């Protein structure tokens, strides 16, 4: 059974970690105002470019390849998440479960082979 008492520390841990990180971000902001290190000016606040004003919107050039990587990852991640319960339940399912998974992996291996053949796994 699920022991919820084991999950409470994780929740508390998340809060503590978030509080600690927020402290690390906001405390120096206050300290630099107190010490007088906080002196922003227009040049300092402009985005980094090698010494000249940026030409174009930096977010405009996004390649569709990244989308393909993300969707392949999504599919294989789903496949992996089918493997997780299978890996711990093989003793109950025996050869039936094993062969079911081999067929499943076979189907997806076809998909992988197709991606490979189409050159979708090549980065150009």
């Amino acid at each position: 059974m699920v022991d919820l008492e084991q999950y409470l520390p994780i929740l508390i841990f998340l809060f503590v970690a978030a509080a600690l990180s927020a402290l690390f971000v906001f405390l120096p902001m206050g300290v630099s105002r107190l010490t007088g290190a906080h002196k922003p000016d227009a040049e300092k606040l402009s985005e980094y470019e090698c010494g000249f004003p940026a030409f174009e919107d930096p977010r405009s050039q996004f390649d569709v390849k990244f989308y393909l990587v993300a969707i392949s990852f999504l599919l294989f991640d789903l496949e992996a998440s089918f493997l997780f319960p299978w890996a711990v339940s093989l003793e109950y399912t025996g050869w039936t479960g094993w062969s079911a998974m081999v067929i499943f992996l076979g189907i997806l291996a076809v998909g992988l082979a197709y991606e490979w053949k189409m050159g979708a796994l090549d980065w150009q």
Partner: protein
Amino acid sequence: MTEFFQSLGLTYEWAWGLATIAGILLIALPLMLSVAMVIYVDRKVWAAINLRRGPNVVGPFGLLQSFADGLKVFLQETIIPSAANKGIFILAPIVTFTVALAAWAVVPFSATAVLADINIGLLYILAISSLSVYGVVMSGWASNSKYPFFSAMRAAAQMISYEVSIGFILVCVVLFAGTFNLNDIVRAQEGFGLGVINAYGIHPLLFPMWVMFFISCLAETQRVPFDLTEAESELVAGYQTEYSSMSFALFWLGEYANILLMCILNALLFWGGWLPPIDWAPLYYVPGIVWLLLKTFFFFFMFSWVMATVPRYRYDQLMRLGWKVFLPISLGFVVVISGYLMATGHFG
């Protein structure tokens, strides 16, 4: 620890709460301290391999170098670029560091010293480490600057590519252990190799998995030879380019906390965790945490060693290694290992 607080005359609830808070601080604070020290170790190891001295000015042998650096960034001005999306820009380092810390909640430091002993410990670590993509993407996008954005996209694609094979490799370990509970995985390794060696890694089917896991860890944490996101000649400082002060440092701290997590996972999953290397009674007198930290330190040394000796990959080579080499091999090994375990009657 709950018993200790109860012995002070507290009720169970209060004792439990105090013990949990103490446990969290006992993990988080030494972790931050060891991150600081490990950065020093990293620099010393590279220096030694390059025949240099490394940090040697601040404190004896330069031991306090990281703290000096920390103080410096702490006192610096926090610059938020005017073009940035302020909210997300500030949130990104918080997310990065929170995620890097949160994964440690389920790590068993010895048979009993574990904060949250959950059934799905390994899945929790996998889930939390898949969140670390967001810190990177958020910082790159919110900076609204060319180089951080490119770097973040590269980093995200790289991290998700290698997460695929990490998932399959973990399945191989879980097949042997039959559980996702990290403590039980460690216990399952007791006397695994020839009845004397406490490690999964020496099994001829699991050793190649470990090698792949180690390399994937390097890629997942963006270490050399996979540190394309920080390729100075192309991308300045990567997705943290626009950051300054402690926000910048948080990315570093998070990165090193993740590296330590990967080292400790190597030790836990493949090399016996808190068990001594050999199943021999006198070795059990040494506390488990000592063995675990020794192993972790060794893997960290390997990370530094790789960093000092290997040149950087090109991006297409990195993608090729992830998708065309690691993915098919780890998939194949899942089938081979499960078939082997079925055939040898591992599942009774």
